[in-house]
């Protein structure tokens, strides 16, 4: 409450603009300050259906907390922690109040994928009065929240509670259903559904293309994390999926997924090392995650690039050949390009390698749907203010559109899509684009001159 009271309640709160789903941050902070925790959670839920998730996994330091005016002289209000607190309080108190649902429209929406984007759209459209069915390929909801983000960062019961709320609101969940292999999107539109949202995620792991990547003991981060999180291999033999037994796991990559993999390896009883080809400042992972990884004793081999994975005669991993890198000129991304230092090759002994260098979009839906325009990276092309694809009535958001981004940006796109889909379902048209922002700044400049 003391922390919440630090909020200055700015007239034009920058934090709200900094939030991809525009949570009314000053209002919920004020409610916490007054001790109205349940009301605070409900205030957040007006715009964000998954606060307990976002309170844990959002990069607040890059969003709402970054632009908080207090950062000019002090530290920002701990918005993320307070969001998490409010949501947990509401859930633990058993006081989850369902938002009111608008008058039913009789329209049917299909959502492909029960990940963050899909859940967000489901929440918004059920409240708007439409019938919503979420189709999920795996046996449990959550998408990357379930199979990817480990329990120690986002406990499964939190995802289940948020999904339960959506079920209570009337969202229908169908598991074990692979859109494209079961019904395709054109079949859905020709059948019961008036609109479709594609939130199928970035489900096709990338590999570096170096020798030895198909050795036994080399895993995509998706596989490594799915075994541990979704299939609960760490509770083998109570669960039947075998765990990965390794004395030393080396993870390739510098993003949040690499941190999750490396920290999971520690918890599975392995020594854990991260190999990343750039420097620490350039790691895409959140500072907080890198910090946790370091504190837990994960070894960082920075400015190091794997060139070959080494195996024995049984085709099992025994090590990795690497080369040291140094930073050269900036590349397209503005980060200094790592260049190999000649003659600096060395070997790391390890018996498992986790490749956490990103994902490509899963091709299953584009393959089974004509007319869906894709970028040259295979992501789905959408219109920015509606998230509509090149096919009428079909919208998309999350990693299938942006490649690889955050949970909250997927939800932000879900929000935009849900608004447009609601408009489309009611009127048969997409909403007009927002007017271009007026240029008032020039005037004030002139005055100064």
């Amino acid at each position, binding site marked *: 409450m003391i922390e919440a009271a630090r909020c200055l309640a700015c007239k034009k709160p920058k934090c709200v603009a900094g939030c991809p789903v525009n949570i009314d941050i000053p209002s919920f902070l004020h409610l916490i300050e007054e001790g109205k925790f349940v009301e605070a959670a409900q205030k957040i839920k007006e715009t964000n259906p998954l606060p307990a998730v976002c309170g844990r996994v959002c990069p607040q330091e890059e969003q709402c907390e970054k632009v908080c005016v207090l950062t000019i002289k002090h530290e920002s209000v701990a918005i993320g922690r307070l969001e998490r607190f409010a949501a947990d309080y509401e859930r633990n108190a058993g006081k989850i109040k369902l938002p009111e649902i608008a008058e039913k429209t009789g329209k049917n929406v299909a959502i492909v994928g029960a990940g963050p984007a899909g859940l967000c759209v489901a929440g918004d459209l059920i409240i708007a009065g439409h019938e919503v069915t979420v189709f999920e390929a795996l046996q449990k909801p959550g998408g990357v929240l379930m199979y990817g983000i480990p329990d120690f960062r986002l406990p499964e019961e939190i995802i289940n509670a948020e999904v339960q709320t959506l079920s209570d609101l009337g969202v229908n969940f169908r598991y074990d259903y692979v859109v494209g292999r079961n019904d395709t999107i054109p079949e859905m539109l020709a059948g019961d559904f008036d609109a479709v949202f594609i939130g199928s995620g970035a489900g*096709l792991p990338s590999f570096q293309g170096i020798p030895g990547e198909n050795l036994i003991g080399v895993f995509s981060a998706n*596989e490594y994390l799915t075994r541990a999180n979704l299939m609960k291999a760490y509770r083998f033999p109570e669960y039947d999926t075998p765990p990965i037994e390794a004395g030393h796991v080396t993870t390739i990559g510098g993003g949040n997924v690499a941190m999750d993999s490396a920290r999971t390896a520690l918890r599975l009883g392995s020594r854990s090392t991260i190999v990343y080809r750039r420097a620490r400042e350039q790691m895409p992972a959140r500072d907080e995650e890198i910090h946790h990884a370091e504190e837990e004793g994960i070894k960082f081999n920075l400015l190091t690039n794997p060139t070959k994975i080494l195996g024995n005669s049984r085709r099992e991993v025994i090590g990795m050949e690497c080369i040291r890198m140094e930073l050269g000129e900036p590349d397209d991304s503005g980060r200094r390009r790592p260049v190999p230092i000649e003659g600096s090759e060395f070997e790391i002994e390890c018996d498992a390698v986790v490749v956490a260098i990103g994902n490509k979009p899963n091709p299953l839906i584009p393959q089974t749907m004509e007319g869906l325009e894709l970028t040259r990276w295979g992501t789905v092309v959408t219109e920015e203010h509606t998230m509509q694809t090149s096919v009428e009535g079909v919208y998309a958001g999350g990693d299938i559109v942006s490649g690889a981004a955050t949970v909250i940006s997927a939800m932000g796109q879900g929000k935009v899509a849900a608004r447009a889909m609601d408009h489309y379902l009611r009127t048969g048209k997409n909403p007009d684009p927002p007017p271009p922002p007026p240029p008032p700044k020039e005037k004030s400049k002139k005055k100064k001159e």
Partner: protein
Amino acid sequence: MFRVLGNRKVTPNAHEMIVEAPEVARKAQAGQFALLMVNEHSERIPYTLSDWDKEAGSVTFIVLEVGKSTSDFVRLQPGDEVAHVTGPLGMPLEVDNFGTVALIGGCYGLGGVVPVGRTMKAAGNRVITFVEARMEGMHYYLDKYESFSDEVVQTTTDGSNGIKGHGVDILEARLKEGVQVDRVFAVGCPFMMMITAQLTQPYEIKTFAALNPIMLDGTGMCGACRCTVGEETKFACVDGPFFDAHLVDWHELRDRRAAYIRIERDVCK
């Protein structure tokens, strides 16, 4: 939940399991598979679709009892339920009138060749079906083979039923006699599929094999099922399961399939 409709022991270690899964049956095509979890703690295990009935909403698998997951499955009786069935998965087989098609089935492939043969026959092909087993009493589905085959050849390793030898040996004999074969489909253990590929290569007969690596999600998300096909890494679950058998790295497939054998053996003790 998915109800078990039938469980019939077809050989001492193989069961024909029929499971109610209307969404899978409705869309199934030759060459595809389904992933099954017996209960919420089970592994996700891929099984080739051996048959399906759209009207009854059922699918049929041949399940070889080889470890914990498969023995959990075959212990179920009609009326019991399995927790999850996902499918159909994988690319459907390319179907055309190729001329004469030879099918080679072994192990669970004795069931796996059935949909392949049926669609190939329907597309106008002459179909010769070679089914191999260790000994007498390990063949089944004869009536099914006869329904789509112009010729059925049964072989046993010890000669106790049909011709002595492997399916591929008899195929070779036929090729030497000058029998024209335009396409070969092999479904079974990696060793059998590998020797089939080795045999047909000098004859330049296009040969396709259904790869069976370890899988996890089955939709391309995890990459556990990586296989090397023609120097390229492919995901068997979304790019396959059928691949050009002449381009497959068979030794890699064999070794990758055995990745967890030690730990699994321990748990079965």
